[in-house]
């Protein structure tokens, strides 16, 4: 149960994609998601799926990781696509019953929704599989940096993010220990109806929260004793470096964008 809660599913590796700068990966993944909406005809879909196929190949990871990454969301996509299919009016009507109908426009939009979602989720999976959570945090910080102008506490936010990520395994361990301790006292976590199960969570959550607050207090003391005075005049140990590979990746995605726009009008 707890394994599924783990943030991200980073698989360490040394592929070209693993080594890309997290800033580049974040921006490019977002860019890809936006241009996924430019798809119109089958040529554009072929292009996008060929591209994402190439990206998957470049990760050097087994295809099963991606299937597992998309797995939990596939039902959501199918559900959304079915809604689109049944409620979109327009074009030739093949079938209708009350307010439900299947139309030619409906088939088109639901197919588009299904394929675009698939593209987006696959790209997001590529990002989390090839980028360590810490690197994502670094990337987010770098991208938020311009917000300093409006006095947004970028450095504090980044530290908060990195401390939160660092404590995920610690708190999962603690949750496991508490669950075992409560099981030994007769609490059943996996039996009974929904209400009963939710109730069983309470004796897990309360000690977990109390423990987490105690840890936060200890951590604050430790940070203070090590001279942490907020973000003023700090230097950074971890620095992101922009390589040629990152520039190449940007060029590749821009070319993809141009080709996509050309294919749209064919």
């Amino acid at each position, binding site marked *: 149960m707890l394994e599924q809660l783990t943030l991200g599913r980073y698989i360490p590796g040394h592929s070209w994609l693993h080594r890309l700068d997290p800033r580049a990966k974040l921006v490019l993944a977002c860019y890809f998601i936006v241009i996924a909406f430019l798809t119109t005809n089958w040529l554009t879909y072929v292009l996008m799926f060929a591209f994402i196929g190439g990206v998957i190949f470049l990760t050097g990871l087994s295809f099963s990781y991606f299937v597992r990454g998309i797995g939990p969301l596939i039902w959501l996509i199918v559900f959304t696509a079915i809604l689109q299919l049944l409620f979109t009016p327009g074009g030739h009507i093949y079938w209708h019953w009350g307010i439900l109908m299947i139309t030619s426009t409906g088939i088109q939009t639901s197919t588009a929704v299904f394929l675009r979602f698939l593209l987006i989720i696959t790209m997001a999976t590529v990002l989390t599989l090839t980028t360590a959570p*810490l690197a994502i*945090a670094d990337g987010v910080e770098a991208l938020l940096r311009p917000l300093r102008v409006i006095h947004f506490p970028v450095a504090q936010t980044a530290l908060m993010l*990195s*401390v939160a*990520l*660092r404590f995920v*395994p*610690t708190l999962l*361990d603690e949750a496991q220990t508490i669950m075992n301790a409560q099981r030994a006292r007769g609490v059943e976590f996996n039996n009974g109806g929904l209400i009963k199960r939710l109730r069983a969570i309470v004796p897990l959550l309360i000690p977990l929260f109390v423990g987490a607050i*105690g*840890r936060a207090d*200890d*951590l604050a*003391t*430790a*940070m*203070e*004793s*090590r*001279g*942490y*005075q907020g973000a003023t*005049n*700090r*230097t*950074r*140990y*971890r*620095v992101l470096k922009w390589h040629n590979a990152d520039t190449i990746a940007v060029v590749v995605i821009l070319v993809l964008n141009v080709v996509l726009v050309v294919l749209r009008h064919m």
Partner: protein
Amino acid sequence: MTKIISVDDLSYQYPDADRPTLNHISFEINAGEWVAIVGHNGSGKSTLVRALDGLIDFKSGTVTVAGTKLSPESVWLVREHIGMVFQNPDNQFVGATVADDVAFGLENAGVPRPEMQKRVQEALEAVDMWQFAEREPSRLSGGQKQRVALAGIIAMNPSIIVLDEATSMLDPHGRQTVLSVLQHLRRSNQAPTILSITHDLSEAAQAQRLLVMDNGQLISEGTPRAIFSDEQLLESTGLDLPFSTKLSQQLAKQGLVTPKQYLTDDELEDWLWQSHLTM
């Protein structure tokens, strides 16, 4: 000898407590000394060292560290002189990886990056953890985490290292590795003053001087040997002597005089079977 820490008439009471946790405490520590503060749980020893670092806001008494009187204005200066290692290895690990954690204090002090990289590596080598530099804390043992915490402090090169029950959550092997890092550090050029809080007397035995606390008061001080032979004091404070010390004392009563310095169980065993030849 120069005094590096002077505490004068320090008292402190937690806001919701009915009696003071620190009750008119005064003592001095010389530069380069290794002092252990012993006492059972709730005797006030943790609160005392937190007061030294300005982590609690005491109202009466004075603390002077390396010539600086502790005050709200000087607290950051004082903290530069003191490096603290706390009890729980997990709750003081700030960085996402070993190297990041060691760098945390250096980042706070605004040390330039090239200098920082050099000092992180040196500190991790000093605690024999450099090969784990990229590891996340969840993949380290308790003893390894405490050595990383020590590296974070060594990198800052403070004149005083305070260990607040830093080994109490470790297994015997982890404890030994942490203590041997300290022994090694004492012989290095850095030679910091060490102030360790512990209720493990075998650890306290390695110090040059002991301060005994009970009920918020400093009730005795002296060499480990002198304190360990004061049976009345030990009984009233509920401290339990290490087995090897008990054995040595019993042997002394039988007329067999063991070496003056503290011996661990293994060392005493070695000494006993070897000394048989020379008797």
